């Protein structure tokens, strides 16, 4: 694939509340609206546990970060969360220096991201449980 050949987005349901959104290519202010629309649609469909699979993403800047952070907030407001799968050095640096590694639950791959959401879900249920008692 040639550099700049736009962004490619694929979403895949894991269960009725969980989905994986795979974002490949380059994510900048030109291609970001496509991702924003896809993620908004996902959350509106009730997928409040979202894995953002960026393992095939080659470029990311503050516009893409803004969309990921915004989606993470939406998910959390709805009782879910978002986890980013990413192992590319130049992208990890962007998460790191923007201080978004924790808020976006950045881990190395989709498996780890799914596991991370599982943990968060359990912690969440436990919290709700505590609240209920």
């Amino acid at each position: 694939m040639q550099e700049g050949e736009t962004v490619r987005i694929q979403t895949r349901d894991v269960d009725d509340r969980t989905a994986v959104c795979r974002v490949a290519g380059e994510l900048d202010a030109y291609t970001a609206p496509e991702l924003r629309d896809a993620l908004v649609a996902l959350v509106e469909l009730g997928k409040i546990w979202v894995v953002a699979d960026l393992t095939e993403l080659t470029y990311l800047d503050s516009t893409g970060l803004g969309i990921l952070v915004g989606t993470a907030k939406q998910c959390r407001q709805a009782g879910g969360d978002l986890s980013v799968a990413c192992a590319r050095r130049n992208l990890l640096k962007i998460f790191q220096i923007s201080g978004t590694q924790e808020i976006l639950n950045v881990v190395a791959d989709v498996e780890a991201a799914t596991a991370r959401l599982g943990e968060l879900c359990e912690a969440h249920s436990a919290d709700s449980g505590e609240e209920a008692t």
Partner: protein
Amino acid sequence: MGERDAGTVKMVLPGRPEFLLVARLATSGVGLRADLTVDDIEDLKVAVAEACTNVINHAFDDSVKAADRVIKLRMSVGNGEMTVEVEDEGRGFDPKELERSKRNGLDGKGGLGFGLMQELTDTFRVESAPGSGTRVIMVKRATR
């Protein structure tokens, strides 16, 4: 190579998101000629794109005609470093406001763009004033 082959590339791009790619590709090309590493080039691409995205998002009032919304880029190579200037003739702003917006970070409105530019380059400077356009000057040193 950096020292012998000093040179400057100038560009004028439409201030629209679809041309950010062209700014990044030009940064790659000049960066290779400045002997930057692949990692340094990736960093500089983001820094340049952030400055250009700011022009697109903030520089122009609705009154400015599309044809006049342009981004001026100047990339020069020499002395073992690459310098990029990103300039617009838009509304400008008071750089003192930056500190405030930076503190807001991701939770407030913005500040992230300039934060990334600063972290991803070796030298970073903003020249701007309300009503007189903006110029961002960034330097990346060749580390190999």
